[in-house]
């Protein structure tokens, strides 16, 4: 197949038409629902506003210098020479126009020749504004930044990379985003037309099917062969990426299309309206409400559910209507942990009806597998417990990678977006509630208030143990961090799972943006770049972004801190530095005990990150970030954090290395 080459126009004949046509594209484009491609309710609101927004030009008017460059034959050149040396209206300018129309504010990239045309368009034609290039030192970091950015901003970021080596570098972070339902627009440079390739690297950096390396864990991709094809594929890709279950998509940017003359054809507008998230079947929702009302002990379990604060409030409304406890698995911040209905996973054990909302693992809520020689499974829930599942998992999945988890035959399975379905379910529950059922709510509330209070007291009591320990206990780490963030508009942009969930146990987490969940695929290298991306999304709101960074994870992608310094992204990073791949310590220990070989002399092999100790603060400092540490004495921690917070308040990233207990 051959790209749709455009004839080189004669500048002397077409100069006026060229000015009109390209700018006409911008002013005539209708991008309903795209300009601010937020998710859920935000996206719908954006869609309503978009018709008005689209009347505004999508780019700054050309300067006189730009017009002269585009329309005049330079002094000393013939028309023929000008055609050989200069391009008046490159295809990548149109590509940028489309990107702007789709509302991508940032494009994270590690520069590469296969997209040099678009890079030049972004920085010169577009003035590096909306979209702005974010310089990354590795494509994995670029994709992980997009991952974190989406979970805060609700908007996809573009990731611009080589189709071959770039996508291979990016693949791990793309997989994490796929598992975590985080959309991004991967833009992959490639030279399909073999006879147009420069000798050498351009061949090594081209492929027949460059997206193949990531196709198992993206939702859709295309390789447009014309500019109009590109525009439609970009719009289609955005729509698919944002439709629940959300996920990454990829569009290949042909090198020739980028660099060649676009000509004067009117390439037309690009229009897209994002899908409204699908709601569950009305009859099935009514049946679910009946089950929940009839239940003695209904329990709600939520994981990748809330896209924004609206989702949180909808879940609060349902839980309060039923006085049903909520087990927040914190794939997203779904429910305030200060609410009396916020409960631990043990609540599932006594439930007669379990309502699962966008669960990553339905089977795992009801059962577990014991890590023994024989991996037998044990049911955690009551044998008679019925399970209602509402989620978008079954609406789109793929087969090779097994992140879909073990199959569980829910008693009532409703395909639909849980956040969009919750109002229907709450309405059905309220309308079907009998006076007797309503009267029982007082006793239910009293019961769960008591359990909530007990758990809170237990958490505080547990946090005392190891308070003065060296290295620093993870409970103390979070208690000291709370002193830093408690009077600020804070947001934790990391997962506290490896730190014994102390943020979730100690801190009041009430806003959706205050917690962004986990990596998704548990692929290391997510932490630092995802935190930088999330902090970027927090920046316009002036929020204090905090990243508790695992040391092993950090060593995969430390270059992300340079991106934060270069772009002035305020972010406090504090390490949970246990000097090893601690999960693997524990696995090795289990294997050694199972084989009765002991582990006294072998536990470090393959797992430790010391001898020599890694100077994590030195690494951060080398990337241009203010840094301090390692902190060994817990008494030194508070003052160090206070100094770092001042740096972050000044709009810059800061880093404190803290040697910590293992978990």
């Amino acid at each position, binding site marked *: 197949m051959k790209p749709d080459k455009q004839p080189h126009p004669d500048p002397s004949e077409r100069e006026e038409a060229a000015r009109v046509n390209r700018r006409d594209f911008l002013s005539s484009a209708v991008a309903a629902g795209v300009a601010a491609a937020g998710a859920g309710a935000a996206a719908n609101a954006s869609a309503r506003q978009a018709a008005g927004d689209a009347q505004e030009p999508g780019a700054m008017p050309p300067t006189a210098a730009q017009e002269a460059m585009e329309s005049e034959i330079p002094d000393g050149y013939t028309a023929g020479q000008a055609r050989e040396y200069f391009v008046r209206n490159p295809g990548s300018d149109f590509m940028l126009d489309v990107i702007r129309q789709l509302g991508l504010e940032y494009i994270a990239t590690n520069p590469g020749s296969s997209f040099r045309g678009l890079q030049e368009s972004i920085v010169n034609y577009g003035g590096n504004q909306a979209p702005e290039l974010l310089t990354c030192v590795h494509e994995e970091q670029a994709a992980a930044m997009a991952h974190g950015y989406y979970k805060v901003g609700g908007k996809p970021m573009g990731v611009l990379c080589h189709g071959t080596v770039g996508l291979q570098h990016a693949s791990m972070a793309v997989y994490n985003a796929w598992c975590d339902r985080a959309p991004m627009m991967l833009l992959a440079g490639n030279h399909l037309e073999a006879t147009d390739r420069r000798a050498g690297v351009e061949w090594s950096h081209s492929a027949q099917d460059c997206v193949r390396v990531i196709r198992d864990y993206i939702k859709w991709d295309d390789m447009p062969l014309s500019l109009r094809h590109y525009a439609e594929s970009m719009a289609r890709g955005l729509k698919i990426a944002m439709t629940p279950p959300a996920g990454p998509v990829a569009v290949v940017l042909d090198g020739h299309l980028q660099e060649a003359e676009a000509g004067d054809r009117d390439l037309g507008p690009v229009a897209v309206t994002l899908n409204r998230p699908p709601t569950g079947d009305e009859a099935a929702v009514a049946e679910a409400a009946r089950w929940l009302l009839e239940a003695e002990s209904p329990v709600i379990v939520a994981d990748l559910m809330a896209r924004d604060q609206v989702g949180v409030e909808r879940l609060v409304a349902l839980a309060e209507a039923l006085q049903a406890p909520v087990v927040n698995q914190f794939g997203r911040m779904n429910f305030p942990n200060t609410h009396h209905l916020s409960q631990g996973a043990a609540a599932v*054990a*006594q439930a007669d009806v379990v309502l699962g909302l966008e669960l990553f693992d339905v089977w795992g809520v009801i059962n577990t597998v014991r890590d023994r020689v024989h991996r037998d499974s044990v049911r955690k829930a*009551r044998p008679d417990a019925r399970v209602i599942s509402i989620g978008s998992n079954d609406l789109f999945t793929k087969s090779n990678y097994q992140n879909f988890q073990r199959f569980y035959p829910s008693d009532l399975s409703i395909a639909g977006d849980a956040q969009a379905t919750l109002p229907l379910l709450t309405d059905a529950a309220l309308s079907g509630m009998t006076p007797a059922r309503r009267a029982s709510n007082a006793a239910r509330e009293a019961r769960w208030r008591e359990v909530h209070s*007990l758990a809170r007291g237990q958490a*505080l009591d547990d946090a*005392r143990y190891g308070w003065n320990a060296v290295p620093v206990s993870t409970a103390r780490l979070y208690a000291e961090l*709370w002193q830093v963030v408690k009077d600020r508009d804070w947001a934790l942009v990391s997962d506290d799972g490896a730190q014994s969930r102390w943020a979730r146990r100690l801190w009041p987490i009430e806003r959706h943006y205050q917690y962004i969940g986990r990596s998704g695929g548990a692929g290391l290298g997510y932490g630092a770049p995802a935190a930088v991306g999330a902090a970027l999304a927090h920046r316009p709101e002036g929020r204090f972004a905090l990243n508790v960074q695992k040391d092993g994870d950090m060593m995969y992608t430390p270059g992300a801190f340079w991106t934060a310094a270069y772009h002035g992204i305020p972010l406090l990073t504090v390490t949970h530095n246990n000097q090893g791949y601690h999960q693997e310590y524990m696995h090795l*220990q289990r294997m050694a005990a199972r084989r009765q070989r002991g*582990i006294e002399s072998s536990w470090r092999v393959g797992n430790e990150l010391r001898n020599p100790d890694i100077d994590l603060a030195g690494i951060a400092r080398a990337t241009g970030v203010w840094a301090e540490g390692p902190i060994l004495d817990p008494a030194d921690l508070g003052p160090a954090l206070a100094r770092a917070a001042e740096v972050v308040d000044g709009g810059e990233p800061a880093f404190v290395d803290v040697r910590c207990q*293992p978990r």
Partner: protein
Amino acid sequence: MSARSRIYRALGLAVPALLLWTLGCAVAWPGEPGDEVREGDEVREGGSLYISQQCWQCHGYEGQGGVAGVRIARTALPYEAFARLVRFTNLMPAYSPKVLSDEQLRQIYDYVRSIPEPPPLEEIPELDFD
């Protein structure tokens, strides 16, 4: 309502509360039953074994516990119950006498029983979240 439902209803509050109580009671209830705390060489040797046998990997250097392992500092379990949990556990790796003798296990028990009481909440302002 079936008999089974009545039982589960009664357990509605009891189960989570019991789980919390069991956790607290089993792992740290200073002054409650347990066995007498031995002192001296046994405790020092137990501390060394606690490190060399990697107990700290899941339970922390001071037995404070966390997501990977319950708190065992100042455990209130009698030695027999503690030993049974190490040998025939549901969750942690089962340590057989071949890699951890009864005497060594007893020394570790003595050590975790002797871990000093942490400061009271009232003396830790960082844990005042009110």
